[in-house]
């Protein structure tokens, strides 16, 4: 098994793909260490919301990832 990271909006461009699979890790830092460094920086500095298996979580950093989880990174939505 693995953990799926999903990047929405322009994060997909930074990540180079709309989603990637990473190896399990005890915390978010451990997951992000496996992706592009620029992306990890973006996830820190922008107003990015995090969803775990389809539910927005208040504290993305606090997630304890489990095998098979889907974690999505959601930048602010576009205006109309």
């Amino acid at each position, binding site marked *: 098994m693995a953990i799926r990271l*999903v990047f*929405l*909006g*322009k994060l*997909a*461009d930074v990540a180079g793909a709309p989603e990637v699979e990473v190896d399990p890790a005890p915390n978010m830092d451990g997951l992000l260490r496996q992706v592009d460094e620029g992306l990890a920086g973006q996830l820190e500095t922008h107003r990015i919301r995090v*969803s775990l*298996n*389809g539910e*927005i979580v208040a504290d993305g950093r606090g997630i304890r990832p489990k095998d098979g989880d*889907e974690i*999505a990174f*959601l*930048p*602010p*939505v*576009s*205006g*109309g």
Partner: protein
Amino acid sequence: MKDVRLLDKGFSPGKSLGLFAKAHPEAGGIASFVGKVRPDEEVKVLELTHYEPLTLPDMNALADRALARWDLDGILVHHRVGMMRPGAPIVLVAAAARHRRDAFEATDFTMDHLKSAAWFWKRERRSDGWHWIEPREADHADLRRWT
């Protein structure tokens, strides 16, 4: 009662409204809003991305809030995703109600929240490539009207 959809193909707002009206013969009035991809000579294509596990459930929750807040016979929320040409319809919101004011306010409320709080990301292709569209401050101001 509640007709909430993500559409991945072009649609005719006039036809959808006609069907919605037929489905609500008891309503005295129907307010609606159709949003189109802004015609802009520079823009070749607009692409709208959503996130399946959140976008449609949140649209349904928004429609439920409108149904709870106003006395409606029905509400319709249709939103395009995928690639669209400038001028193409992108969103249709309609509310059927016995009283005009309920229909207007529910439509206005739903549009404001859809635009600012629903999970859609847009990018447009111009002659020099794709550009992501950033949030607009005006949308947040619209949203504050309802709090």
